């Protein structure tokens, strides 16, 4: 299932100009600051907004083509949409909400699929309840299930976590991760939070002032210095896709391996072999020209300088490559000059801390 979008639309002075394609299952984040036009883009895909110019193709079917006057109305597009505010039907039970799109699908999913989605989102106990009796996180889970059960060709998620507090977010995230890992369909995930993007997305599309400006795999995009300059956000650091490779319980440590080496973190509650994303903040990385042998930090990786960018008057962001993984170090401009940093130079990166999803860690933070 694939989707390609090429639209232009004038929203009363604000110009929308989106051009991208997604051709595999998994989560693609539509990332940009609030008001950059992300929701308008997904509304156009769903058919809730009719762009003045352009075309949208979903799974080979042209649902919009302004030149030949094609506009397929939203109810015939088979696009699942999870709204930020859930938008459950208040006069129906949770089960009726879940079955609303399921009943209306051209080929309704099997009853076993209903049971599977209910189990995946842990909705069994909520089925008889009314939406008014649900917490914010529960509402979002029901909205997610309702959209999934309508047999969509693509799933749009418009900041499904933005209205939730940190505890509720932590409650939903594992479900979204599971959805990503079992991915059978492309998902477009609108977000202005780099944390969410880092934890969930497989690839990222960056939206700025109504324009889609860049697209790429999440691990490359987050560590890309040009991108952080483009979005105007301070460098996020990096997210690295790792696998739990061993537990050293006597020392209270776990070893995570990734393409380029291994990281040592406090003991984890995850099985060996499981995939885990870790984040390394740019501020937490120091550089050393020679291997520091007597040092308290556990993680010292021999890397190559890939890129360098001065940020503000004091700092410089250094992008490093270690195997196929990329990460970023924020150092002072003075240090960068003293070390004589240039692309291609080998450097030892010293990581003061590696951030692991709090749910995976065995020790309370």
């Amino acid at each position, binding site marked *: 299932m694939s989707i390609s979008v090429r639209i232009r639309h004038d929203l009363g002075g604000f110009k929308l100009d989106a051009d991208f394609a997604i051709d595999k299952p998994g989560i693609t984040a539509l990332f940009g600051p609030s008001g950059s036009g992300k929701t308008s883009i997904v509304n156009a895909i769903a058919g809730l907004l009719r762009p003045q110019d352009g075309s949208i193709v979903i799974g080979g079917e042209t649902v919009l083509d302004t030149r030949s006057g094609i506009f397929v109305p939203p109810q015939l597009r088979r696009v699942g949409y999870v709204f930020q505010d859930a938008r459950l039907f208040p006069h129906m039970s949770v089960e009726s909400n879940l079955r609303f799109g399921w009943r209306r*699908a051209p080929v309704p999913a099997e009853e076993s699929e209903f049971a599977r989605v209910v189990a995946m989102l842990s909705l069994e106990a909520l089925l008889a309840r009314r939406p008014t009796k649900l917490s914010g996180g529960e509402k979002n889970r029901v909205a997610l299930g309702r959209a999934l059960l309508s047999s969509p060709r693509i799933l749009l998620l418009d900041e499904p976590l933005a209205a939730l507090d940190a505890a509720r977010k932590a409650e939903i995230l594992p479900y979204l991760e599971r959805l990503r890992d079992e991915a059978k369909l492309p998902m477009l995930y609108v977000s202005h939070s780099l944390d969410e993007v880092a934890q969930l997305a497989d690839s990222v599309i960056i939206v700025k002032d109504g324009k889609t400006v860049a697209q790429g795999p999440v691990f490359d995009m987050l560590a890309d210095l040009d991108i952080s300059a483009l979005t105007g956000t301070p460098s996020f650091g990096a997210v690295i896709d790792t696998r739990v490779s061993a537990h050293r319980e006597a020392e209270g440590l776990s070893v995570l391996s990734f393409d380029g080496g291994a990281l040592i973190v406090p003991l984890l509650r995850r099985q060996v072999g499981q995939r885990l994303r870790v984040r390394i903040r740019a501020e937490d990385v120091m550089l050393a020209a020679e291997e520091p042998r007597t040092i308290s930090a556990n993680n010292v990786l021999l890397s190559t300088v890939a890129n360098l960018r001065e940020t503000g008057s004091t700092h410089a962001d250094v992008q490093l490559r270690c195997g196929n993984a990329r990460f970023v170090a924020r150092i002072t401009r003075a240090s960068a000059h003293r070390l004589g940093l240039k692309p291609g130079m080998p450097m030892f990166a010293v990581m003061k801390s590696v951030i692991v999803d709090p749910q995976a860690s065995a020790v309370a933070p």
Partner: protein
Amino acid sequence: MLSPAEIEALLLSLRISAVAVLCALPVAIALAALLAHRRFPGKAIVDGALHLPMVLPPVVVGYLLLILLGTRAPVGAWLLQHLGIRFAFSWTGAALASGIITFPFQFRAIRLSIEAIDSGIGDAAKTLGASAFDRFVNLTLPLALPGIVAGAVTAFAACLGEFGAIITFVSNIPGETRTLPLAIYSALQSPGGEAEAARLSMLAIGLALIGVTLAEFADRRIRVFAGR
């Protein structure tokens, strides 16, 4: 306690009001849905016209009906000749007049409740594959139910009190068009009818109280149903 004539007036009032409200209800729902959702040129004029019966003197409405639907008036004569329908001097005419006078009560309440439905819910239903008719039946109607019931109950109560349009259009015929208010009026016109007028007035007050209580009860139950 009540004379057969008084019971007759009471039952006639209930029948006329019920028919008036039930016949106007689908029209009110359709027009309310149309005006709540659609934009079209002249919408403000249509909106104003639909509220007119509420502000016109009922006697004027009765008079207009008379010159339109009287047995010798063009439309009235045609209806009688071709369809055998007669409104003039008949209880159906009383129901028609009451239905028109109280139409704005239903229309307004229903329109407000339809407008109060979050349009985002309709968008969600669209993305789940629901057509316009499907959304109207499964979302708009149930979610507007509190307004529909409130409008119908208010209109019913107003129908029970209708006087001017009925007496102008269909006159004051015992057993046919003499509803409770007309019976009270007739009693006051006849010598020694004060006691009867008082009894009938008490009856009208009792009916109003029952109506208000039922409406309140129904409203609470329906709001729970509609998840508000």
